[in-house]
C-alpha cells in the first residue's frame, strides 16, 4: 500500500461513464484485479471522506510510467467532481487496497457476471484470467445501452458475451439473472465471478448455491477510510468452521468475498430496495424500534 500524488494522464467519456487514467507506478506495479484505491476529495464542505474506486486496469510498465485506470459513474456529488477532473490535475491516492480475486487452480471455465459500471473491475480480472490460460465468458447487464461498459472490450476479452439491458437498447431485454442460467449452461461454467449492486449479487449467490458453483463477488459497502481504521464498511461473513459469523471490513478483508459465506438476510434484510415508488403508494416503513 502506497500513498502517492498521481497526475491525471487523460480522461474520456465512455457512454454514461467517465474513464480516468492516472500515472501511479508505485500502485500500478503492486495492483491485483479486485483491488481499489482511495482518492482524496477537494477541501470544502461538500465532500469529506475519500472516494473508493475499483481498479479497471493497471499497466505496471508503460513507456515511461505505470498507469492506473478507473471508471466513474457520475451519480453523486463526489463522483461528479471526479468525472470533471481534467488531464494534468493531481490526485492524492492510497492504494492498492483490499484483497483481490483468487484464480481457480484446476477449474478453467470462468463466467464473469457484471451489472453497470461494476464491470470495470471484472475486465481487469478477465485479462488476468486469460493470461493464466483460463477460459473467460461474460454476462453483462445494465439499465440502458449507455450504461453497458465497453461492450467491444468485453468481446475482445472473452469467448462469448451475453448482454442484457433493462430497456432492450442493447442485447436482450431483461436483467443479468435472466441471462445467467443459459450462459452458464452454454459455456459449461465452472467458476462464477460477479460485481454489481447488492441485490444482484445476492441472486448470483443463490444461483451459485443452486448449481454448486464456486464463486467470488465484489462487495461495495459505504466506507469511511478504506484502509481498515474505522470499522464502518463491514458485512456479516460466516466463519469457515460454522461457529457463527463476523462483521468483516470490506476494505481490508474484502472487497472480494465468497458468496456462500455472506449472510445475505442479516446484511440486506433491513435494506429492501424500493426504487422507484410503487404505484400503490409509499411502502409501509417498519416502526422503530421494532
Amino acid at each position, binding site marked *: 500500500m502506497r500513498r502517492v500524488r498521481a497526475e491525471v494522464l487523460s480522461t474520456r467519456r465512455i457512454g454514461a461513464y467517465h474513464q480516468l487514467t492516472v500515472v501511479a507506478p508505485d500502485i500500478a506495479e503492486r495492483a491485483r484485479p479486485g483491488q481499489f484505491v482511495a482518492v482524496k476529495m477537494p477541501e470544502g464542505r461538500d465532500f469529506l471522506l475519500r472516494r473508493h474506486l475499483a481498479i479497471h486496469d493497471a499497466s505496471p510498465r508503460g513507456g515511461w510510467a505505470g498507469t492506473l485506470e478507473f471508471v466513474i459513474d457520475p451519480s453523486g456529488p463526489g463522483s461528479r467532481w471526479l468525472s470533471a477532473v481534467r488531464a494534468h490535475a493531481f490526485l492524492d491516492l492510497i492504494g492498492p487496497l483490499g484483497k483481490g480475486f483468487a484464480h481457480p487452480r484446476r477449474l478453467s471455465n470462468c463466467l464473469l457476471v457484471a451489472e453497470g459500471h461494476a464491470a470495470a473491475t471484472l475486465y481487469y480480472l478477465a485479462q488476468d484470467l486469460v493470461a493464466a490460460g483460463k477460459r473467460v465468458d461474460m454476462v453483462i447487464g445494465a439499465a440502458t445501452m449507455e450504461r453497458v461498459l465497453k461492450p467491444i472490450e468485453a468481446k475482445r476479452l472473452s469467448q462469448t458475451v451475453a448482454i442484457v439491458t433493462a430497456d432492450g437498447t442493447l442485447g436482450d431485454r431483461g436483467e443479468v439473472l435472466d441471462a445467467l442460467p443459459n450462459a452458464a449452461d452454454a459455456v459449461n461454467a465452472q467458476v462464477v465471478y460477479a460485481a454489481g449492486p447488492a441485490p444482484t449479487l445476492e441472486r448470483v449467490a443463490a444461483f451459485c448455491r443452486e448449481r454448486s458453483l464456486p464463486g467470488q463477488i465484489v462487495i461495495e459497502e459505504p466506507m469511511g477510510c478504506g484502509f481498515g481504521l474505522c*470499522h464502518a464498511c463491514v458485512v456479516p461473513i460466516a466463519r469457515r468452521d460454522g461457529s457463527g459469523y463476523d462483521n468483516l471490513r470490506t476494505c481490508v478483508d474484502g472487497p472480494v468475498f465468497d458468496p456462500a459465506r455472506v449472510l445475505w438476510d*442479516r446484511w440486506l434484510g433491513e435494506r429492501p430496495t424500493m426504487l422507484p415508488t410503487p404505484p400503490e403508494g409509499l411502502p409501509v416503513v417498519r416502526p422503530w424500534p421494532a
Partner: protein
Amino acid sequence: MKRTITVDLGAGLVLPTPVIVAAGCAGTGRELSGLVELKRIGGLVSRSVTLEPRKGSPPPRIAETPSGTVWSTGLQNPGVAAFVDDELPRLAKGGAPVLVSIAAGSLEEHVRLVGALQTRPEVAAIEINLSGPDDELHREILGEHVDRTGEVVGAVARMSLVPVFAKIPIVASHLVELARAAVRAGARGLTIGGPPQALGVRTADLRPALGGVTGWLSGPALKPLTLRAVLEVARGVPDAPILAVGGVRTGEDAVEMLLAGASAVQVGTAVLVDPAAPVEIARGIAAFLRAKGASSPAEITGRLRVPASTDEAAP
C-alpha cells in the same frame, strides 16, 4: 529558549506531540503503520474495548453529511481478553503512547475491564467512554448523570495504575458538573468530548442512512461545539488537563482548541481522510508556537482572551 512540542499531562504521562488519534480511528494496530510515522504521533486511543466481544451495529455504518459524517460502529471489538493478547501489543509497537478506551454498562464491568488492563505495561492511560447506555440504572447515556459519572470514574480511577481520562459528552446539559464530578472521583484529566447523537436519512428508499438507525456526528461540523465545551470545562475545572476531540482537521483548529483550554487534541475523522493528519497538525501547532514566541503547547493552553464580564454582550 528551548522549544518543545511535548505535552506533560501529569502522573508520568508525557505525549511526544499534542495530537492523538481518537478512539475508533486507529484500526487494530496494523493499518496505520505504512501510512504515517507512528513515532511522530502524540498517542493512539484504542477503539473502545468491552468485557465481551461485540459484533457492533448492522451495516451501513457511515454516511457523509455536510462537513461531517454520521456513523455508528456499535463498539465492534474482540473483547478485552483478545484485545490485550492481540491488538494492544500491535498498537504499542509503533512507539506512540496507547490510551485504552473502555466502555461498559455497569460498575462491575468497568472494574473488571480495568482489572484486565492493569498488568499491561503497554497501557499509558485509560479513557472511559461514557456515551453508552447504563444497563444497571436503565438510562440511555451513562455519562449524562453526575452521580453515576462520579461513581464509575471513581471505581476505575481507584483501581487503575495509569492516569484515567473521562470522556464527557459535549452536549451534556450539566457539562461542567459532570467534568467536576469526574475529576473529584479521581480522573487525571478529561476528554471533551463524546460526540452528539445524529441521524442520516436516505430519501431514495425512505430509510435511515445507518443500519443502526441513529449514530454519532463527527468531522469539521463539530468544531464550534467542541470549542465551547472545552472553554466551559477549562474555566469550571481549571486543574484537569483536557483532551479536545471533535472537529479538529488542521493545525489552526488544534491551536483554537489549545487556546480555549485544551492541553492536547484528538483527531478522528481527519485521520480517516488523511492518515498523516496528526503529524501535519502537530507541525501547524509548532509553527504557531514559533510565530508567537511560545516555548511549549502548555504555554498557549487556555490563553484565549475572554472578557471578564460579558453581560452587555449577552442577548
